[in-house]
């Protein structure tokens, strides 16, 4: 079981992208499943609950609480950082060994933790947020068109109408 709406809400706070932008990638459900696959449900629930309790990160107090209760938490911090990396880089990174020892998926799980970092899917690569964040397109996909590299920035030059 996974809750997509919770996942989007938390992801928006972690990535700095609006929920509608995250939905626009089309890969949110796959990331949410990936999270559920490698992280125990009670850990995910705890992360959602903690984030919910802290609320919007639009002031110093809440940000301090976020760093204290999530980012620097041995249990929740690595998971939160992995979620950011999924969205930006389309990669699921192995969680640290000590985290796995304490909070990893149990032995009854069908899927053992992955032994290597991996690209979640080809479409995930194409939808990685980092490319948008740096003002370009994923290398090898979403072609911007002939000659666009001659213009400043990502968007094609706007011509003034006279």
């Amino acid at each position, binding site marked *: 079981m996974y809750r997509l709406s919770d996942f989007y809400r938390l992801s928006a706070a972690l990535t700095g992208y609006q929920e509608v932008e995250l939905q*626009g990638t089309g890969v949110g459900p796959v990331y949410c499943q990936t999270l559920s696959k490698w992280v125990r449900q009670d850990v995910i629930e705890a992360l959602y609950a903690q984030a919910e309790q802290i609320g919007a990160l639009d002031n110093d107090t809440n940000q301090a609480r976020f760093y204290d209760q999530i980012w620097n938490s041995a249990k929740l911090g690595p998971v939160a950082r992995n979620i950011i990396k999924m969205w930006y880089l389309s990669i699921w990174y192995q969680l640290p060994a000590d985290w796995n020892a304490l909070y990893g998926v149990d032995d009854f799980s069908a899927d053992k933790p992955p032994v290597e970092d991996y690209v979640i899917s080809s479409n995930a690569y194409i939808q990685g947020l980092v490319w948008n964040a740096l003002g370009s397109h994923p290398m090898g996909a979403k072609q911007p*068109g002939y000659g*666009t590299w001659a213009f400043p920035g990502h968007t094609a030059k706007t011509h003034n109408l006279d």
Partner: protein
Amino acid sequence: MYHKLQKRPIETLEQLHHDLQLAIELEFSTLPVYLSALYSIREGTNQCAYTVIRSVVMEEMFHLTNAANLLIATGGSPAINNPEFLPTFPTKLPDGETWFEADLQPFSPAALRNFLKIEMPADLAKADDITIGEFYVGIEKGLETLHNRYGPALFPADCHDKQIAHKYYYGGGGEITPITDLDSANFALNAIVAQGEGVPEKHWNPTQPFPLGETTGIDSGDHQLFMQPRELSHYYRFNELLLGYRYVQGDTPDSGPTGPAIPIDYRQVYPVLKNPQPENYHAFGAIARLDTEFNLTLSLLLDQLHLAFNGQPDILVAAVGTMFGLKEKAQNMMRVPLPDGSGHHAAPTWRYIPIDKRPGAC
């Protein structure tokens, strides 16, 4: 609102220019229809359908460019960046095809049936229904009439360099040829009618075997044939998708396509709104903003095309970049479910925003 076609033979230059402007609008008006379906296909799925629709889109743009070049070659000026250029969907097509409306909708059998009406060859249409092919026959006859009257002066020499040259157009669809006289004008027009809409006498004779072998070198239902370029008209390419089978040599309109099956999965499509209107997004600010951004990009595109067709062909380079940006914005929007629980996804409304109504305009 689109009843611009006056049923009359073309007898003046103004009438020719009027009809060519209409031709440009007509070609462009099919793009939102095809692109709405094309972009609704989930990434990496329905590759065959995606390739077919994309190839038709490329040819429509080729037709648009040819029509614009003919207008330019005869001393006219295409008008592209204004709210009247683009119809509001659903719409009747601007060439006077009043017997159906073109819809924006996701890739589906309904969408394909709609495409078939757009591309209907005259020999399959009802006697009274106007088809795109017949519309172009009118232009051809008008050109002849005017050429008889004006001679070579119909194509003023100072208009040659303002046309869009071959080097600007790529990606399939055909080769742009410069228009300098009646022959080259007819050549450009023929490229339009032969390729897509078709006129009866230039079209496949239904009593004859399907002309696959001669034109393509492909002789039968070889699997190699998937996604290989073939010279079927748009109508039959769409009909293959609707029926789910390829035409092969020996097939007739009555037999239908008897070749290999085309793998299509209509579930691998974002269930976007049919004929979305701005009102659909009033309650959803974030989606309304996506739609506005899409429309601003579309408006930029029309501005760029307008300049390109009015003496600054270099701007086509930037316009192609804008087209790719438009695709990305459309796809991003179509992946977003409406928060109303309807199960529908958002889709762009395809509206031109005049310069004075854009953000930051004074």
